[in-house]
């Protein structure tokens, strides 16, 4: 964080009077407050506060880390729309079509952002009034993640109900921000998944073929499939099916939830989160190890189905695996806190996610269920780690 601050201050010189960007100085001030206030620390003498990072600064950093995925997601929503309606033909993507895709996606995704924030913050404000507390920053990230993890055709009123349900029953009844057992954004998605299954599974939900606010209604091209690659694998009878290649999945121009498709965008966010120390690299890495290892074992010894035959590295880049690993599983409130616990927690998330994908024909994607399940186990993991440590130290004491 310190290094960032130096660079930021240097950059700030441009905004001082007479600088190149003096007219934009208010922008600089705004971001300065968002990112680096409060910044009062103790003197550098041993174990004291070295960085005045509070929850507001942490939340803003996560939102910034999510922005690449959000921007790419918006573009991809429009791009999939153009593909499905046959507007991108042989000549590829022109400049005009690029902006049309992005504009379409922006208009499609923006209502979800607005609804998620309006409902979630509304409830937070009301609860804060009732409990006579300050409004906590907790919903800032949740509200940004929700549009990224719901399918683009989910009706807005369903999103509103799901957000209200999640904020009240997954967060406020436990005591508000920082006390929740389960990740609030994932509870939103889980509610949608179980309450309105027809909107969340199958072929239709992930590509918007029809219009957005009456603009650019299209007809589905004959023979074009709007199913996500994982759905195709989950429903096929062809045991060697491989709907997309590795690099297609990494580049992310495929159907899927808004933010989950592009590995590059997620990686950018992951780098920011790891460098600033907001999210734990141990959790992320162990999820990929756990998922990869489990998928590899299925490759070797698993049943002869498409999901089990899918190469292990494909499991890591398809569906919500990477997005969940980077942004959802690392939520500091609901994940394991002990360093050793993070390895166990992450490993089990990867394991369960792949097991659900391969062995449960009803659920082509297992990341959401895996993270929610391990959220419930995180305190137990921590308890075991702490107690093991206590026992170990007690033994050492006796030896002396």
């Amino acid at each position, binding site marked *: 964080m310190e290094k960032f601050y130096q660079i930021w201050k240097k950059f700030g010189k441009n905004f001082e009077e007479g600088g190149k960007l003096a007219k934009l100085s208010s922008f600089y001030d705004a971001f300065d407050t968002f990112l680096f206030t409060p910044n009062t620390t103790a003197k550098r003498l041993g174990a004291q506060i070295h960085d005045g990072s509070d929850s507001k600064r942490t939340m803003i950093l996560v939102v910034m880390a999510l922005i690449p995925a959000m921007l790419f997601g918006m573009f991809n929503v429009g791009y999939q729309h153009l593909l499905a309606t046959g507007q991108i033909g042989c000549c590829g993507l022109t400049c005009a079509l690029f902006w049309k895709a992005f504009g379409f996606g922006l208009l499609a995704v923006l209502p979800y952002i607005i609804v998620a924030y309006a409902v979630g913050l509304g409830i937070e404000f009301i609860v804060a009034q009732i409990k006579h507390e300050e409004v906590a920053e907790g919903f800032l990230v949740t509200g940004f993640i929700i549009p990224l993890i719901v399918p683009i055709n989910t*009706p807005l*009123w*369903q999103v509103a*109900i799901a957000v209200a349900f999640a904020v009240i*029953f997954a967060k406020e009844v436990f005591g508000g921000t920082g006390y929740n057992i389960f990740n609030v954004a994932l509870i939103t998605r889980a*509610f949608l998944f*179980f*309450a*309105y*299954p*027809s*909107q969340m599974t199958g072929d239709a939900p992930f590509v918007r073929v029809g219009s957005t606010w009456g603009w650019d209604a299209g007809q589905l091209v004959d023979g074009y499939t709007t199913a996500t690659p994982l759905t195709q694998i989950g429903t096929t009878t062809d045991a060697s099916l491989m709907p997309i290649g590795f690099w297609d999945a990494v580049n992310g121009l495929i159907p899927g939830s808004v933010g989950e498709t592009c590995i590059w965008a997620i990686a950018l966010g992951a780098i920011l989160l790891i460098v600033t120390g907001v999210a734990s690299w141990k959790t992320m890495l162990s999820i990929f190890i756990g998922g990869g290892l489990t998928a590899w074992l299925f490759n070797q010894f698993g049943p002869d189905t498409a999901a089990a035959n899918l190469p292990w590295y494909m499991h890591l880049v398809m569906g919500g695996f990477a997005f969940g690993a980077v942004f959802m599983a690392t939520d500091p409130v609901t994940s394991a806190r002990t360093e050793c616990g993070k390895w166990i927690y992450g490993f089990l998330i990867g394991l369960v996610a792949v097991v659900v994908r391969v062995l449960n024909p009803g659920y082509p994607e297992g990341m959401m269920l895996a993270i929610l399940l391990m959220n419930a186990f995180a305190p137990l993991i921590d308890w075991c780690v702490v107690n093991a440590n206590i026992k170990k130290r007690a033994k050492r004491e006796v030896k002396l």
Partner: protein
Amino acid sequence: MLSQKTKETLFGPLNVNNPVVVQVLGICSALAVTVQLKPALVMGIAVTIIVALSNVIISLLRNTIPMRIRIIVQLVVVAALVTLVSEVLKAFAYDVAMQLSVYIGLIITNCILMGRLEAFAMTNKVWDSLLDGLGNGFGYAIILIIVAFFRELLGSGSLLGFKVIPDSWYAAGYENCGMMMMPAMALILVGCIIWAHRSLNKEEK
């Protein structure tokens, strides 16, 4: 007609001493049979009849039951009544009996029954025991009906099997909430009722 004490015996379990939301008994069947209103109603009536009658019988026998084998005597009485009710339901309301499946038989293990027999019928007179049984049965039934009302309305869009939500709503994009069909949501609804109940009865602590 009713003295203060008998009033309390009869109406207490409906609200301030409700077996489901205050004593948190009989939750299992409350989650299982409340997907639709009709089975919930039948279940409520069945439990009320069985609690009331077994309360009366145990209260009649209370001075002759040896303390060491009282549980087994209570179980025999309850089992006999449950079997009777189950046979009657199968004879006259076969569809509902099939919907309720094992839960009619499982009334034997319903904590409310054993709780009332142990806590009330073993030490009280017949008339009081009857009122207590009726009160607790109604208290249980009321919660079942509230939960089932919301679950059927929001989960299936109907009440007692009749369509309540007009087709025009469905055409406009309304959908039934599948969560309501799951036991998990019933638990959350019971939680909400408990929440509301505690907030309304704060001074009763």
